[in-house]
């Protein structure tokens, strides 16, 4: 299993590096722009007061979004760009892990070896998870030295909180994508279904904030449980976020493992 794990990491080291660099670059850009935003915070606050509360809620904009680094990053980086990078990274790795290998036929060389399918699944799963942890670490904690460079005050413990939330969010998406990758023989299906599911969730979250009678739909969306404002500004994570993300990650990982062990694999 270690051979599967280490080889997967080795094969994707350049991709991990690119994702980490992209995450850090966006972070750097936003942090570099923060002093300018902060100077305009009074007028921005005035502007925000003119927007309906539901609109601000739908797009994760907090009143502290332009007055504190944490609020600013929660809105600019962690409400859109970071989740996008995390989704591309986790789904991309998951899709290539099994469905991609079946599609290209390379899975045969693995299945012909004295290696159980369970070990193959777990080895690949852990490799993807390890890479995601590396991405979470660099794309979040790089904020601390970068902020120091620009002499911006920050609350380090709040970044730990958002890192935990971000990890849980990515873990749930990754587990669903791994399940789909174990189920299908075409990585396009993994991208399409996972992507479609997340788009629907995103829309549900926005609709639930805009329309009162649709408010309950938010419970069906990952983007409701993934609330970077709360984590980064107020150092809080809803207990339901733990339950939903960890619960779904567990369920889909086990389902993926069972299916991968039992299914017919024809290339």
């Amino acid at each position, binding site marked *: 299993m270690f051979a*599967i794990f280490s080889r997967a990491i080795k094969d994707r080291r350049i991709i991990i590096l690119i994702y980490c660099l992209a995450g850090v670059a966006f972070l750097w850009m936003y942090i570099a722009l923060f002093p300018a935003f902060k100077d305009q915070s009074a007028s921005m606050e005035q502007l925000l007061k003119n927007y309906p509360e539901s609109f601000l809620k739908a797009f994760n904009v907090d009143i502290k979004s332009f007055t504190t680094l944490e609020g600013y990053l929660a809105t600019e980086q962690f409400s859109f760009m970071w989740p996008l990078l995390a989704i591309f990274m986790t789904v991309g790795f998951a899709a290539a892990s099994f469905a991609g290998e079946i599609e290209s036929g390379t899975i045969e*060389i693995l*299945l*012909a*070896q004295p290696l159980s399918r369970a070990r193959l699944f777990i080895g690949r799963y852990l490799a993807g998870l390890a890479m995601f942890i590396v991405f979470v670490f660099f794309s979040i904690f790089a904020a601390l030295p970068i902020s120091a460079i620009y002499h911006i005050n920050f609350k380090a413990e709040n970044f730990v909180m958002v890192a935990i939330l971000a990890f849980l969010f990515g873990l749930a998406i990754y587990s669903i994508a791994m399940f789909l990758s174990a189920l299908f023989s075409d990585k396009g299906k993994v991208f399409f279904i996972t992507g479609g599911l997340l788009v629907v969730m995103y829309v549900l979250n926005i609709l639930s904030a805009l329309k009162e009678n649709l408010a309950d739909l938010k419970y069906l969306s990952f983007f409701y449980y993934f609330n970077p404002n709360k984590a980064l500004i107020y150092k809080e994570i809803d207990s339901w976020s733990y339950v939903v993300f960890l619960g779904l990650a567990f369920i889909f990982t086990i389902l993926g493992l069972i299916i991968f062990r039992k299914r017919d694999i*024809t290339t």
Partner: protein
Amino acid sequence: MNTIEVKNLKKYFGKTKAVDDISFEVRRGEIFGFLGPNGAGKTTTIRCLLGFIQPTEGSIKILDHDLTQKNFFIKEKVGYLSGDVRLYDGWTGEDHIKFLESLRRGQKSISQKLVSDLNFNPKIKFKSLSSGNKQKLGLILALSFQPELIIMDEPTVGLDPLLQNTIYEILEEFKKQGTTIFMSSHNLAEVDRLCNRVGIIKDGKLMTIEGIQELKDKRMHVVKVYLNGPFNQQDFVFDSIEIQKELPGGLELGVRGDINPLIQKLGSYNVRELEITHASLEEIFLEFYGASTNYLENKNQNKSDLLEIPKME
């Protein structure tokens, strides 16, 4: 002693019966050819033997162990080569070899010897290799751990004769060391050279299992002969020969079995041109088994009836 024992194997994909109740054994140390037209069920059977797909019904024993129970143990002793080797484009041959060595830690590898015997450059990425070199790498990976059983699915398809010959020599060497080889093939010459016995599958059913000599006896040739001067067509009418076509100054003959009586007969003529071609294995299948029922039904008939050479249409 049998290396492979397949009993009442069925594999259905929905309503499609890819493999329909086949049973056969492969003896230890023999090369067993698994023959059949495209879509007959050869690859499905091989995938069942390797555990890539689960049988709908039936059992598979390899090296005296149930495949479903002792998959790990069996895979340690099995090498697999597909006719269409698909490996990681971005890896070199060396990467592939090292990766398999790390997966099979503790098993002795002879990969360096094979690399040298096959004159293979392991430093080139898979995507840059020619089809022949891709097949060489597949063969190295299949044989590196000196398997007790080698399973191959049309291993030499699309390869040049030189490389085919090298592969045959390596397989013969392995056979001498007691390795059992199970291979599917369309190539009659390959089967002729390598195999001890063959199983013929058609439409998912096993039509027959025969020794290679018995199959050879059923060989067909197409002979085109052009003669100088007049000739008597009746001279070329034997039990095993049929005149298929009249040619300007010659004949096209269908010959079943031994070709020597025809050659002897031609000796009494002044031959201008002679062309002898083997009928393809698939043509033999169609000829011999096209309208036949399956082997299990035939098994109850007299053995000599089964092996009797039917008259050509």
